[in-house]
Structures are given as structure tokens and as C-alpha cells.
């Protein structure tokens, strides 16, 4: 047997900066393989119109193995295990797996440039990307390199989202959120949660898990898993719960955003000082929309929200090593992020306009650095 180098999907950013590959992202390699296999099968059928299915041994011939991870973020070297002297191309007349690898790279390249997908890429296979890249966090990506190319297209959450939304109006992504358990339905294998913004969502869960949560109603829990998001990045449902843990009783939990905004909207003249004025309702709407967008993908926990004596509104997070605040200034509608590292001299100060989508992306990236 011999090994032939096939692909170097290089994991970059976030958890991968230590030149190591966390084992919990290994399913990504398996999902990448699945996309390649399905596309290779499609290409074979296209090349053999008279055939209904691929020949026996076709899929089994694609023996992809991981023998080592090279430095440079985390670069797994995926190799094909082939019989001595044989090349994959010799087995079925063409190297459909290499062609599939290249077409996937082309599709990702187009999506990363926010362009239409290549015409030869089968739309029906797009939903496969729901599984590939699902665990990527906002500051992480996979560079799809192969032996012939030193650089490859960048596959990140935004590119993946763009790609999938070409085919259907929703996509799957990882979630890590705090929610309140509201109940469950055994026969539907379903748990109902209330998100901090008041949204009610359902989660798929085995009957045994549904049974376990009944005594926890209506406590706050942390939910880690994957969910379905709409085109506006709103979480619609949770499709898989990996971990569900009760938040500790002595750890304060923020008032749900909608409730807190209503509380702040009801503040009267002189609420903190004789000259304090009620908060501007438009500011509260802008703030609520902005924080809602920041939390939409479930990667950032809900913040505590406070007014400031100057009439602004501020969100605050306490992470193990960082204190972070995001304030929207009433007069300018600018967003000011301030982060302080508790054990060192490190800090961050960022000021950006509240409206652009880029501001949400930028601040989410900073917050995710602080969460770790």
C-alpha cells in the first residue's frame, strides 16, 4: 500500500492558532470527505449517463486517512491509501474524487467572493455544506489547500452561510447560548426554550432527555449544540443538543433583553439625578436591534444592560479574564466597545457606527476573543 497526498484543509484562527487540531473538530474532516464522496458519485453518473449508480467499490476506493498535522495553524495532511503502484484515476477511468475536491474549492472560492456558484456545481449537493463547517466559530476558517496549490479558498461561517443560502432560505450552525427551559413534549421529542430576547424556540431531543428536563422548568440553562438560522441570522430551532447544563444559582443571569429594554424605557425624569431625562425611545430601539443582531448566531452570551447617567445605553459582559462593555451613544448612535483584561495591561477600545452589518461582525469577533 502507498500514500498519496490529497488535500490539506488548513484550520486557522481561534482554537487553531496553537498549531494543534482540537479533537472536537475532527468530524469536520469526516463531513468534508462526505461532500467529496457525494460530488464524486454525481460526477461519475454524469460521465456515465446510462448508469443509475456508481460501480461496486467506488466509494470504498476513496480511503482517506490522516497521518499527521503540520504546523501553520492546524494543517491536517489528508492522504489517500492506494494499492502499490496504483493511482485513484486508474481504478474508474478518471479521478472523480480529485475533480470533486477541486469543484468544491471552486464553489467555496465563488461563495467567498459572494459570486454565483460555478454552473457545473450541482445545486442539490449544497445542503451537504450544512454538515461541513458547522462547528466553525466566527473567528475561525478552513483554507482548502491541496497538493497543487499553496493557498486555497477560505471557508468560514459567512462563506458557508452564503453558499447554503443560495439553495434554501435557512442554514445550520453551532449554538452556545443561555436560555430558560419552558417545557417539553415527550411524544414530539421536543424541548421548548425561551431566549433572552423573549423568542420561544423548540429543540429536538430524545425522549429520555425531554423527561430529564421537566424538573428543571423554568430554570436557566446553557445549551451547546447546533441550530437552524434564517436568512437574517435569527435562530429558528435547535436541531441537536450536545450539552445542556443548569447555570449556577449564584451566578446572576441578565434580565431578558426585551424585558430590560421595557424597564429602561419606563425610566422617568430624575431617575438617577435631578436633571436625568427619560431614555430616548429611538435609542432603545437601535440598541435592542444591535444587541439582537450581535446575539443572533448564539455565540455571544446575553449581556447585562444598563442606562448611563448621560442617557446612553450600555451592555456589559463579565468573562473569566475580561470585562467588556458595548455602549450606544444617544447623540451620535456610535457604538463604543471597551474591554479590559483583568490580569494584565491588555485592553481594547473601538468606536464604530451602529448601523452597518460590519460593525456587528467586528464587535462579535472581539467579544469572541474575550470569551475564550
Amino acid at each position: 500500500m502507498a500514500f498519496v497526498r490529497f488535500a490539506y484543509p488548513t484550520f486557522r484562527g481561534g482554537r487553531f492558532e496553537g498549531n494543534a487540531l482540537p479533537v472536537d473538530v475532527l468530524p469536520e474532516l469526516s463531513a468534508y470527505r462526505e461532500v467529496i464522496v457525494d460530488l464524486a458519485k454525481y460526477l461519475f453518473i454524469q460521465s456515465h449517463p446510462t448508469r443509475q449508480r456508481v460501480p461496486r467499490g467506488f466509494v470504498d476506493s476513496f480511503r482517506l486517512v490522516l497521518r499527521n498535522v503540520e504546523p501553520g495553524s492546524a494543517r491536517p495532511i489528508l492522504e489517500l491509501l492506494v494499492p502499490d503502484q496504483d493511482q485513484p484515476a486508474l481504478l474508474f477511468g478518471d479521478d472523480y474524487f480529485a475533480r470533486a475536491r477541486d469543484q468544491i474549492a471552486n464553489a467555496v472560492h465563488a461563495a467567498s467572493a459572494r459570486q454565483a456558484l460555478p454552473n457545473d456545481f450541482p445545486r442539490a449537493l449544497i445542503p451537504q455544506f450544512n454538515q461541513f463547517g458547522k462547528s466553525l466559530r466566527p473567528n475561525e476558517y478552513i483554507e482548502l489547500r491541496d497538493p497543487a496549490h499553496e493557498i486555497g479558498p477560505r471557508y468560514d461561517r459567512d462563506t458557508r452561510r452564503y453558499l447554503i443560502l443560495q439553495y434554501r432560505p435557512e442554514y445550520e450552525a453551532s449554538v452556545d447560548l443561555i436560555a430558560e427551559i419552558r417545557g417539553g413534549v415527550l411524544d414530539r421529542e421536543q424541548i421548548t426554550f425561551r431566549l433572552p430576547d423573549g423568542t420561544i424556540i423548540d429543540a429536538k431531543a430524545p425522549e429520555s432527555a425531554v423527561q430529564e428536563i421537566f424538573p428543571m422548568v423554568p430554570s436557566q440553562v446553557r445549551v451547546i449544540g447546533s441550530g437552524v438560522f434564517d436568512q437574517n441570522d435569527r435562530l429558528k430551532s435547535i436541531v441537536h443538543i450536545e450539552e445542556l447544563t443548569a447555570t449556577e444559582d449564584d451566578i446572576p443571569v441578565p434580565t431578558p433583553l426585551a424585558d430590560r429594554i421595557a424597564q429602561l424605557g419606563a425610566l422617568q425624569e430624575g431617575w438617577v439625578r435631578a436633571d436625568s431625562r427619560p431614555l430616548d425611545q429611538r435609542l432603545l430601539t437601535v440598541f435592542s436591534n444591535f444587541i439582537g443582531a450581535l446575539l443572533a448566531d448564539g455565540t455571544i452570551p446575553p449581556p447585562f444592560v444598563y442606562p448611563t447617567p448621560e442617557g446612553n445605553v450600555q451592555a456589559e459582559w463579565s468573562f473569566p479574564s475580561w470585562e467588556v462593555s458595548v455602549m450606544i451613544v444617544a447623540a451620535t448612535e456610535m457604538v463604543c466597545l471597551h474591554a479590559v483584561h483583568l490580569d494584565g495591561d491588555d485592553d481594547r477600545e473601538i468606536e464604530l457606527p451602529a448601523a452597518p452589518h460590519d460593525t456587528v461582525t467586528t464587535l462579535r469577533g472581539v467579544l469572541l476573543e474575550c470569551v475564550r
Partner: protein
Amino acid sequence: MQKSIGMPIAPRYLITVDNELLHRNAHPTFVDNGRPSSQVFCLTEDDRGQLSTQQNSKASAEVAYQRYTARGLQSCGIWSVTILECKSLDLSAYDDPVIDDNSHAVIDLTAFNNSQARKRTNTLAANARSRGCQYKALE
């Protein structure tokens, strides 16, 4: 800031006992579900770089709350930091009794610009949160 009765920031008024607690009263709007905002420890323009506190050795957390609210100010509880925590941020605290409160003290942030001061007060707030509420007003 309350009117001082004439004890300026000077070495002889420096509070040196590391475990002395310095109390801050929290306005109810700046506490959400038991968590005080960093603003509880933030300077305002009126503070002129000196953060008002009350020393535990002269007024327990409960007494500090009573003295504060007796002046018509709103508080839902007390959160506190130590002199040692101030020192770790290059901050000094000074005895600064006022007419109706001999426990009054100030944490001196006059040497720092807004950004540097905020970094320090945010860290003080985090320390106070870790310590927990020292006195909670009856609801």
C-alpha cells in the same frame, strides 16, 4: 462629591490597612438581577478624579447604606473593594471625612486619563462583584 471638611490628598491621610473594605452604594437602576454595573465604580465629572467610598472600619456596610440613603440618595445595596485591590491597580485611598459621614474616603484617580481611569474602575467593579453584595437593602 460631598463637601470635605479639610483633609486633602496627602500622605498622612493615606489608608494603609490592606484588608480595609471600601464601600460603594449602588443605584437600583445600575443593578440587574443582582449584578452591579461597572458604572457603580465609574467616575463622574462631579467626582473630579476622586471616587467616593466609605471605610468599613468606620461604617459597616449596613451603616454605610443608612448614611447614604439618609441623604436622600437611592441605593439597593453595597459592593466593596479592598485597599490591597486598589494598590494592585496603582491606586491610593485617602481618609476624607465629610460633615455627615466620618467614614468617607476617596480613591485617587487624578493621575490617570479617562481611559486609564476607566480601566481601573472596571477592574475594581469586577473585584467587587467577585466579593459579592456586602449589604442588600430590604425590598
